[in-house]
């Protein structure tokens, strides 16, 4: 029997290289950005993490941004300000 052909309904995801910036050797004196995703307690959790980074790891300061909502990437203003004003960023989820 000859049979027949069927077509593949799937798509191979396009592969793209992702390059991470080097992680800082130390957080001493560094400015830390905190990106809050709007979920309950995510601001509380991130603030706590920020406090630990300052008291235990010597970070100089923290500042927090709030995303528009939890399902979207950080908006341009956050990215622009983070590029200019902080050395490292912590992004978290509050589920």
């Amino acid at each position: 029997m000859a049979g027949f052909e069927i077509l593949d309904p799937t798509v191979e995801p396009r592969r793209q290289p992702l390059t991470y910036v080097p992680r800082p050797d130390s957080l001493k004196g560094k400015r830390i950005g905190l990106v809050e995703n709007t979920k309950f307690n995510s601001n509380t959790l991130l603030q706590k993490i920020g406090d630990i980074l300052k008291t235990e790891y010597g970070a100089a300061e923290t500042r927090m941004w709030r995303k528009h909502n939890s399902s979207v990437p950080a908006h341009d203003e956050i990215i622009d300000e983070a590029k200019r004003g902080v050395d490292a960023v912590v992004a978290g989820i509050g589920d």
Partner: protein
Amino acid sequence: MPPMTATLTSQRYRVDDFDQAIEFCYERGWTDGLPVVPPTEASVRAVLDAVGLEPDAQIAFITNRQVAVTAEKVAINAVMAGCLPAYMPIVVAAIEGIADPRWGYHGPGTSTAGAAVLMIVNGPIAARLGFNSGDNLFGPGWRANATVGRAVRLVMRNVIGTLPGRLDRGTLGHPGKYSYVIAENEAESPWTPLHVERGCRAEESAVTVMAAMAPHQFYNQLSNTAAGVLTTLCDTMRNPGMAGQPNYCVVLAGEHMRTIAADGWSKADIRKFIFENSTSSMAHLKRTARAPGSVKPEDETTMRPLVMTPDDILVVAAGGRAGSFSCYIPGWASRASSQAVTTVIKDRRV
């Protein structure tokens, strides 16, 4: 328009017979759990011809997945879902809708809250292609309703990668994830059709997609006034699932539709009444752990609406003529995260 001639570029697999093809699709993880129709070149071309799209035409681009959804892949999945070729323009319009940034694919596609894609078909195409807008509205039995929604879900799974348990992390999900397609009963409705309210012309056909939870039915066989029927609805829908002020869809079936219309109420009147009568106090939302924080005295008199504006409530006339039942459907999460989107169903063959 002549039939498509461009080559179909999808990988091909040879199978011995129909049974083996069905099992092969299962083995590859291409199905929603039900058997699919094996997609052949002839059946896929018939679907593409019906919509007037070249195979490599891009229907949508899903940004967060970096996936281009092409007509060929949509057609393959539509065949697998059991669609007639004539359904393809509706599938395409629905895919355009869920790829719209306002719908925000990433959230409803992945969220633990488990949203499905509610699709509401309006305009002449609904009756022409046999979409059910009456009895057993959300139930099985109509090929158009069953297969169009299934095709969209198969595209989400096979093309966009929204695999249950992996990218689709719905904690519970709901049966609407198989298919969740209704049409508005425009023939009997006394009201402006949904797509016209949302900016389309009456003679156009359109599909509205809403990231949606399951339908919640309510019962009122005592009231003979619009306010009476809708008071029961408001009392039922007042307790929100996520309290995030999403879109809501209210589906009013035959008896309730006639009762409300007999009082001369328009859809705008219905939306206004629901908006004003489905609020909850912040105190209640806090006591029932729908909102964070401790109850303060002012919370007793601070009322939170179910939605941000009355226009966030989609009112649809549909469902059986008999029975004192209607329903509401909460949207997913919040309107800030996902908005219902109405897309015109285009005829590209002319």
